């Protein structure tokens, strides 16, 4: 029981675990279960997307033409890069390089800001044009397919829920930066960093699917 009072960064662990490794593995298991719930939550939207896409193919093809794939592609690259820097921050923590770890986290956070900035530009553009969800749809241009509002409902719901996860992820990364700067992460302890990383990768994963589904429909 001597390890109970040691801080985690020196290999300590909570009283109800056998050792630090036990705690690390359990935390990771918990985070994976939580990720599973996130996948299911987004999954509901994906299911709705596939159902409506199947019901109104023309609507979705036309809807996608109002989106600029270049924004989507850049955002994809930005998120992939941020995932890369995220794993690097863990990599540096594992190698006891606190400074590089913090730097990588800052880059990840920056990528988050870029992503949200681009998202903001896209949203503003669409709101100006009246490309709004469902019954708020007020686009005045030429419209071919029916129920175009439904496409934008799926667009806003999916990107909106995703965007809110990016924001939550950014908040968590800020928390990690604070802890990393205090030198809490090293080869003995990086559990929270790892868990936040897993969450951030999931956000990336979802975008990997959203990009072709929303921007490149045919």
């Amino acid at each position, binding site marked *: 029981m001597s390890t109970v009072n040691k801080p985690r960064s020196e290999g300590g662990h909570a009283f109800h675990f056998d050792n630090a*490794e036990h705690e690390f593995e359990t935390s*990771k*298991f918990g985070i994976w279960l939580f990720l599973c719930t996130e996948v299911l939550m987004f999954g509901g939207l994906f299911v709705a997307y596939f159902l409506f896409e*199947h019901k109104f193919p023309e609507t979705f093809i036309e809807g*996608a033409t109002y989106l600029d794939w270049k924004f989507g592609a850049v955002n994809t690259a930005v998120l992939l890069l941020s995932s890369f820097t995220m794993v690097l921050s863990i990599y540096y923590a594992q190698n006891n390089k606190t400074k590089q770890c913090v730097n990588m986290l800052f880059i990840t956070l920056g990528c988050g800001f870029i992503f949200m900035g681009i998202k903001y530009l896209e949203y503003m553009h669409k709101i100006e044009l009246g490309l709004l969800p469902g019954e708020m749809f007020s686009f005045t241009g030429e419209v071919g397919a029916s129920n175009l509002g439904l496409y934008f409902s799926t667009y806003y719901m999916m990107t909106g829920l995703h965007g809110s996860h990016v924001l939550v992820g950014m908040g968590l990364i800020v928390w990690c930066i604070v802890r990393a700067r205090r030198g809490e992460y090293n080869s003995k302890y990086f559990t929270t960093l790892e868990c936040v990383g897993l969450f951030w990768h999931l956000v990336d994963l979802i975008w990997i699917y959203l990009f*072709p589904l929303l921007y490149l429909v045919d």
Partner: protein
Amino acid sequence: MSGHHIIPFSVYRNVLLALLALTILTVAVAKPVSGFDAGVFNFLIAMGIASVKAGLVMAFFMQLKYDNKLYLAIIVSTVLFLALLFGIVMIDWASRAPVMSTL
């Protein structure tokens, strides 16, 4: 310490490059962008590439390749449950006998 597996930097770098390359590929084969048309396979190709990308992220960035296979089972069964939801609702929608007004 299985959970503390340290993956070499070069692996991460290569995965990132592969992911970026696949992103470019996705765009390149998308009909609205390049006009490339494989008919019914367009959708499958797009989803296929996305799944390869997702697989890379999960295997290396999320370390599934090195980790407890239980996590993989969790994610796979999750996706199966979603497929079930989609599948049965699709069966319902596709097999509803339409009733028409006769007035």
